């Protein structure tokens, strides 16, 4: 525990160093990245070593403001969630070395590093917090620091709006959490987490739902996700990486922790989580498919992956309530592993998108293209990340989903509702997988392959060294997890060993399967190499020509004729139309010799539309009417006082 706090102090010291050296740009970057990363590595070593040799939870507490205690507890779940925090943070920092290059914004960059350090530390505190005061304290610090990170480029209006939206969701979510905790406090009279399970069964569901909404607004469950696709494009890419890769998982952590602490008997909790997960997953990926801004797309893809993780958790919870140990075990373990995997490949993808934005000056798919030849490392690592996030073997994404599938298949032997839910979960996962494939073939195929659609994209070059190194490392990790999944699966098993219901589940049988998966992956890679060699052999001494793409008879192809992201996704979007509304604007042809004609389609978030229509607008309308109260006439002001007297006297 002391090691962990030392690590946090070092991390924060790194942030402080940034402010200290803000005038010396390069020195500042080196100092803060070095120090903070050191802290993260210490923390990472601590959490992995404790996780693998897990004995019992370690606790520590201080008294604060006389009657609060700041209590921390490091159990297996906390340790597991510490791993992505301490893994991604140093990588994101190293990435930022060449990404944050604008010396004019020296001070702002320093502030950015400072809040980065605060964010990392507060996330670590969130997962180790052992009472509600500590938790909300860390939680609010996390929201606040990440807000500042989002508004880094505040000159752009969209970024400000994104920051605003994020701020509101963060605070609204926090209020829901406050309410949930307050209800708990009402029942237990104690701030301590460990007292939660003792409360009566009745309010548990309500508490969970409040907390679920509160945490969900951070995690990005549908329909509380709308800040995500705005905030992620607004933030600098390494910030998007850490937010999407790690911070939103804190919402998952919260949901799971709350579930464990409440230990409610009602099966409804698991069912709610599962169903919400399914909706979030499918709609997330469909929206991702519909978006043309890479970072926005990735943000929606995060929503999708949150859905997958929730499906895993939901499977686990249903397993617990069905007394199906295998289902619970694999559901939870799969969700955990996916948390870890997603943190890596999503960060990788955001970093890739950042490199593209940095060099090709655009993040709109329809303005990119042909980057694979111009930025080969970025392109290849992005490809690896895309395969991984689509859940395809032999990359990491598949392993987590496999565990969830495995758990869900165990649920098929259940009865009635939980059986139907298990089927739906499996089918949903399959559909999500297919759509994710479609979505990421779109990104890779249109942004990195083909011909550049704009001049800027054509002039793009490889991004800086630190950027490439980090991305290569992450891509390799994605492949390693996919090929040698065993240690990572063990890590996730270690993560859930603190859960009473699944404790003691015999995993030997499953480990054999894992071996087989690993072998299959190796065999497959071998087969690909073999066929590749065969192909090479076949091409030996053959004539290799090159020419333009076959235009099916069209003789003057231009780059603008390439398929665009919009048209690629159009049919699929159309299939989900009522949930994914498309706004089309067509200028029409109205002259004999038509001039410039435009066709413009935009996919709008249904949640956003409904918030607008049924929440924001009515509230604003009512408020605008109520503004009459302060009309400036003193006579009526006095009348208010008189009226108040009369009303209160009637109360007597």
């Amino acid at each position, binding site marked *: 525990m002391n090691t962990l706090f030392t690590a946090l102090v070092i991390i924060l010291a790194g942030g402080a160093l940034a402010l200290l050296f803000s005038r010396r740009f390069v020195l500042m970057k080196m100092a803060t990245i070095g120090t903070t990363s050191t802290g993260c590595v210490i923390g990472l070593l601590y959490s992995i070593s404790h996780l693998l040799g897990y004995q019992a939870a370690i606790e520590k507490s201080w008294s604060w403001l006389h009657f609060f205690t700041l209590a921390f507890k490091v159990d297996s779940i906390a340790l597991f969630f510490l791993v992505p925090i301490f893994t991604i943070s140093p990588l994101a920092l190293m990435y930022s070395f060449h990404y944050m290059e604008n010396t004019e914004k020296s001070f702002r960059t320093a502030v950015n590093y400072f809040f980065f350090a605060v964010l990392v530390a507060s996330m670590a505190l969130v997962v180790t917090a052992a009472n509600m005061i500590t938790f909300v304290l860390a939680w609010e610090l996390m929201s606040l620091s990440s807000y500042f990170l989002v508004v880094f480029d505040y000159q752009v209006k969209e970024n400000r709006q994104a920051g605003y939206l994020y701020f509101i969701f963060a605070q609204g979510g926090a209020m829901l959490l406050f309410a949930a905790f307050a209800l708990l406090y009402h029942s237990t009279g104690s701030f301590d987490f460990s007292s939660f399970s003792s409360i009566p069964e009745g309010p548990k569901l309500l508490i969970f739902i409040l907390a679920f909404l509160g945490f969900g607004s951070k995690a990005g469950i549908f329909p509380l996700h709308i800040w995500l696709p705005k905030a992620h494009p607004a933030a600098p890419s390494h910030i998007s990486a850490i937010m999407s890769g790690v911070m939103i998982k804190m919402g998952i952590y919260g949901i799971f922790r709350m579930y464990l602490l409440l230990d409610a008997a009602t099966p409804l909790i698991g069912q709610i989580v599962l169903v919400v997960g399914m909706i979030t997953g499918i709609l997330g990926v469909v929206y991702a498919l519909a978006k043309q801004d890479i970072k926005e797309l990735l943000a929606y893809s995060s929503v999708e992956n949150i859905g997958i993780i929730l499906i895993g958790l939901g499977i686990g919870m249903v397993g617990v309530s069905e007394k199906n140990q295998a289902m619970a075990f694999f559901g939870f373990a799969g969700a955990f592993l996916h948390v870890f995997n997603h943190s890596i490949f999503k960060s990788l993808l955001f970093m890739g998108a950042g490199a593209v934005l940095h060099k090709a000056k655009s993040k709109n798919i329809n303005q990119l*293209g*042909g980057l694979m030849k111009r930025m080969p490392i970025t392109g290849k690592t992005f*490809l690896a990340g895309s395969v991984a996030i*689509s*859940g*395809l*073997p032999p990359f990491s994404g598949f392993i987590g989903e*496999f565990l969830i599938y*495995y758990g869900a*298949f165990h649920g*098929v*032997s259940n*009865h009635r509702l939980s*059986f*139907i839910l298990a*089927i739906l979960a499996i*089918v949903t996962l*399959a559909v999500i*997988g*297919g*759509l994710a*494939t*479609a979505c990421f*073939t779109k990104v*890779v*195929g249109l942004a990195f*392959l*083909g*011909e550049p659609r704009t001049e800027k994209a054509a002039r793009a070059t490889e991004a800086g060294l630190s950027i490439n190194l980090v991305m290569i490392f992450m891509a390799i990790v994605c492949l390693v997890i996919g090929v040698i999944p065993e240690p990572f699966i063990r890590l996730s098993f270690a993560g859930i060993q603190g859960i009473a219901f699944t404790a003691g589940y015999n995993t030997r049988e499953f480990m054999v*399967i894992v071996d*087989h*998966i690993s*072998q*299959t992956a190796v065999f*497959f890679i071998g*087969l*690909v190499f073999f*066929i590749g060699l065969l*192909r090479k052999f*076949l*091409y030996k001494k*053959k*004539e*290799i*020509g*090159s*020419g*333009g*793409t*076959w*235009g*099916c008879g069209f003789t003057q192809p231009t780059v603008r*004729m*390439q*398929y665009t992201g919009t*048209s*690629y996704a159009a*049919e*699929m979007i159309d*299939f989900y139309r009522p949930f994914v509304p498309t706004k089309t604007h067509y200028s029409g042809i109205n002259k004999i010799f038509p001039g410039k004609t435009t066709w413009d389609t935009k996919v709008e978030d249904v949640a956003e539309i409904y918030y607008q229509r049924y929440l924001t607008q009515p509230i604003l309308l009512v408020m605008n009417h109520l503004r009459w109260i302060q009309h400036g006439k003193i006579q009526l002001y006095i009348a208010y006082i008189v009226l108040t007297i009369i009303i209160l006297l009637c109360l007597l």
Partner: protein
Amino acid sequence: MESIFSFCFAVLITPLLPAVIQKTKAFFAGKQGPPLLINYFTLIKLFKKGSVYSTSTSFVFQMGPVVGCATSLMMLLFFPLAGAAPIFSFHGDVLILFYLMGLGRFFTILAALDTASPFEGMGAAREAFFSTLAEATVFGILVLFYRLSGSLSFAEFFSSTSPINLSGAHAALLILVFIALYIVMLTENSRVPVDDPATHLELTMIHEVMILDHSGPDLALIELGAWLKLLFYAAFLTRIVDLFHFQNFWLNSLYFYAVVTFIYVTIGTVESITARLKMNMVPKFILTPFALVFFATILTMELIK
């Protein structure tokens, strides 16, 4: 040993079978049709050639055929052909295999998009779309099979204590599954009425338009991969209707390939007597098997306690 032999035989015979479809279609058209060995000739011809690569393409374009072919081979490696145990098998292999198939599709689509051709992009988009729908059906089938046999591997589906078989206890359900899987086969392999491999207008194609720019050995690998995939689905269907089971491996094989050939003939028949659907009707067509499978799965809730 039998397994390896069976696998090798299947790979060898793969190019022969699609010719059956062509023959059937020719028969319906009153033509003589190409020789049965036509596809072998094609392969040899393609292997001999060199290639012309578009200047737009990158290494992904060359990877597409390799990965596509490898994934199709993987399917057959794990599938219990002709009553023999597959070369590899483990609990849960179906999941990784169908996902590997997704990987193959991933790279095929990328290879198509790599050419910067609007037509290939169009094909890629359709491929991506229709396969998401087909995938749901496949996993529905897996759920049902798991419910019936309690296993998650191809080998155990057909060899467990309650094997998946039309002659078994749940024949009624399996008929639904059979129809569903048949439609999935047509979809995944781009056959009529989802796609017409013989059409001449690129705008209406799905699979064929994606490989317009491939040539030489690359094209050969793609074709081989496609045939292997078709064989896999046909074999899958065959195992479901595997009414007889002989003790003799050779007899089994003979019977198996007879049924496989029959399925190919039916494909040819379907292609001869139906026209391809309008593109906007295809999703509906692909959703039909999903509905069937889902219905069948729900039924098991009552049937199997």
